[in-house]
C-alpha cells in the first residue's frame, strides 16, 4: 500500500507541471481568532434584540418552534408543556454545569422522568452502554446552545463532557435553551467562532463533534414528499431566556 511520502510525492510532481488556472487566494483568516471572537461578542451584545428577532423568523422558517421566557426558572414549565402535549414521559438533559442551570427536580416533579448526563469521566463500558440505552429510550432531549445563528435559524452545539452528541439526536423531541450570549448574526461570524474554538489547546471538557442544527431531521426521498423526523428529532424547540442562563 502507498505510504504518505509516495502519495504526497506524486501530488507534488503533478503540481510542478502547472501554475494553475488563475491567480487565487484562500479566505483571509483572523490572526488572533480568540481576541476577534471576544470583540465580536461585545459588539453583538449591543444589538441582540434585532438579532433575536431575525433568528426567530429564520428558525420558524426552517420548521423550528420558538419560545421565550423571562428567567431560567420558567424553562421547566415550557419543557413540561411540550412533553405533556406529546405524551413524552422520559427526558435526558445535558449536565447542569453545561446548561448553566439545574432543572432536574422541577421536571421530575412535573411528571417527566429526567436524567442528566454525567459531568465528566464516563466510567466502565457497562456504564456507557447503560447511558446510551437511556438516551435511545428517551422521548425528549434538553440541551444548551453555543451559537444561535440569525441568518440561517441554526443552533450550533459543541459536544463534550456532560454534553453527549446524541442528546439532540436520538429523542424525537429536542428542546434547546439559550440566551443572548449565544446570538450571532451570520455564517461568517460562525466562522470566527469556529476559528476561535480551534485556536490553541481546547478546554478539557471539549469533545470531538460540533453540530450545526437547522430545523428538524427531514427527508424528501420518496416522491419529494417532505417528511420530518427520519433519523433525528421530528421537532426542534428553541427556548430563549431573557434573564440569562447563568445568572
Amino acid at each position: 500500500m502507498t505510504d504518505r511520502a509516495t502519495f504526497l510525492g506524486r501530488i507534488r510532481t503533478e503540481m510542478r507541471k502547472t501554475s494553475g488556472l488563475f491567480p487565487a487566494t484562500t479566505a483571509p483568516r483572523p490572526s488572533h481568532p480568540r481576541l476577534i471572537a471576544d470583540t465580536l461578542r461585545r459588539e453583538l451584545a449591543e444589538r441582540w434584540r434585532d438579532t433575536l428577532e431575525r433568528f426567530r423568523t429564520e428558525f420558524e422558517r426552517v420548521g423550528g418552534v420558538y419560545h421565550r421566557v423571562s428567567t431560567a426558572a420558567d424553562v421547566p414549565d415550557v419543557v413540561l408543556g411540550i412533553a405533556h402535549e406529546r405524551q413524552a414521559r422520559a427526558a435526558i438533559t445535558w449536565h447542569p454545569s453545561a446548561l448553566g442551570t439545574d432543572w432536574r427536580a422541577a421536571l421530575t416533579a412535573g411528571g417527566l422522568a429526567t436524567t442528566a448526563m454525567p459531568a465528566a469521566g464516563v466510567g466502565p463500558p457497562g456504564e456507557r452502554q447503560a447511558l446510551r440505552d437511556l438516551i435511545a429510550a428517551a422521548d425528549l432531549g434538553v440541551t444548551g446552545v453555543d451559537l444561535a445563528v440569525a441568518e440561517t435559524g441554526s443552533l450550533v452545539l459543541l459536544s463534550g463532557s456532560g454534553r453527549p452528541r446524541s442528546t439532540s439526536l436520538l429523542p424525537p423531541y429536542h428542546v434547546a435553551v439559550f440566551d443572548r450570549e449565544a446570538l450571532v448574526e451570520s455564517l461568517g461570524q460562525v466562522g470566527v467562532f469556529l476559528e476561535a474554538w480551534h485556536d490553541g489547546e481546547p478546554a478539557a471538557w471539549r469533545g470531538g463533534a460540533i453540530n450545526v442544527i437547522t430545523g428538524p431531521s427531514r427527508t424528501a426521498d420518496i416522491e419529494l414528499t417532505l417528511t420530518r423526523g427520519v433519523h433525528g428529532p421530528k421537532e426542534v424547540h428553541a427556548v430563549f431566556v431573557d434573564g440569562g442562563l447563568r445568572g
Partner: protein
Amino acid sequence: MSELSTPFRERAAHALDDRFLQQALTIATTKFIGLRREAFDAFPDGDALRDRARQIKEATLQRLDEHLEQLIDNVERLGGRVHYADTADDARRIILDIARRTGARLAVKSKSMATEEIDLNEALLHAGVTPVETDLGEYIIQLAHERPSHIIAPAIHKTKGQVAELFARELKREVAADPEELTRIARAELRQKFLDADLGITGANFAVASTGTVVLVTNEGNGRMVTSLPRVHVAVMGVEKVVPSMTDLVVFLAILAKSATGQKLSSYTTLVQGPRRAGELEGPDEFHLVLLDNGRVRQIAGELREALYCLRCGACLNVCPVYRQIGGHAYGYTYPGPIGILLTAMLHGGGAVKDLAHASSLCGACAEACPVRIDIPRMLIELRKGNVERAVAPGPEQVVFKTFARLLTRPALYRLVAPVGRLLQRPFVRGGGIRRLPLFFGEWTRTRDLPAIASRTFSERWRDLEREGRR
C-alpha cells in the same frame, strides 16, 4: 461503477420510454431548479460568495500538498489514522483490513458518492460485513439492488408504490404506499442498525486542514448517527475535498445547500474531529481517514483540473436538458449529469466517455448553475477533441466528415460534386429532408435528419440572379 452491458444509446432510449421516470425527472428537476433560484434570489451576496468559493478551490489546489500535510498531521495528532489509496482497489482493501482487524460484522453508511465510486458495498459483503445504507433514498435503492439516479436524490426514479412493495418484501408484511408511513418504518428499521453497528462509514463533504475536521452535510441526521454510535468511523474522501480553514469552510456552507436543495443550510452540518475524547460518552474509539486518488491526482495538471472544484451539489444535473430527459442511470457510471461525464473521464479515462461526451447540447446551463462556476462545456469539448484525436469516433463517421471538410474548402470540387449528390440522394429524400440512410450511415440518421441538397445550389442561383440583373 459501470453498467456497460448495454451501450449508452440503448440505455438512453430505455429511459426515454419509461413514462414514470420521465414524469419523476421533470417534477424533481423543476422543483430543485425553482428552490435553488429562490434561495439565491433571497441572498444578495450569493454571486460574490460563489466567486470567493471558486477562488478558494483554485488556491487550495495550488498548494494541495501543504494542505493535505496539515490535514494528515492534525488527524494524527488527534489520535486518528490516515490511509492512502491510489486506486479504488486500494481503498477497498484498506477498509476491509480495518473491518477485519476490528471484527466488524455490521456497517452503517451515510450517503457517500466516494464509497459508491469504489464499489465498497459489494466488497464488504464478500468479506462477510453487512453494509446498510442509511440515507432513506440510498436505503431504498439498496433494497432494490439499484444505483443512485441523482447525486442528492438517489431514489427519485421510484414511486411510493414501488417503495412500499420493496419494504413489504423486506419486512414480510403489508405496507401502505404513504411516504410518511414509509419513512416511519425506515426510521425504526435503521435505528436498530445504528445502535448495533460496529463500523460507521462516511464520505466527507469537506475536510478542514487547519483543524483535522471532517465535515458531513445531511438532512436526515444519519451522518450524525454514523459518526456518533459505532465504535469505528471510517471517512473516505477524494484528495480535492480538503479546505484550508474554518473561514474557508463557511464560505462553502453558505452556497452548498442553496445550490443543492434551496435550503440556507441543510438540517445537519456535522464537524467531527478524530475519535471520542476523554470524558465523552459517544463517538468512535477509532477514527480512520482514507485519502483517495483514483484518477484525481493526474488531473491536477490535466485538462479536467477544474472538475476538481466540484462540491457534488447536483445543481448541474437539474438544469441539464439531457439529464432531464434520460435521468442518472442512462449515464451508466457512478456520477451522472454534466459533471458526471467529466468525473467519469477522470476516473476511467477519456475513452470511457466517447459516447457520453456527446450527451450534452453544450447549452451552458450547467456552468451557469454551478456554485463554483466550473466551465463544464469547455471540458466536454476538450474530451470530444481528445476522442477525435485518439480516433475513437467510428471509422465511417471520420471518413464522411473528412470528405465533407475537403469538399467545403474546395469550391471547384464542390460545384462539381453537388449535382452528383443531388442524384444520389434521390431515393432517400422525404419531405425536403433525408431521414434514413442505408448501411452504417443508418446509425447516424437514426436520431438525426439531414437537410437534402437543394435542387439548385446557392452559387447556381446567384449566377442566375446576376444574369437576370444584367438583362
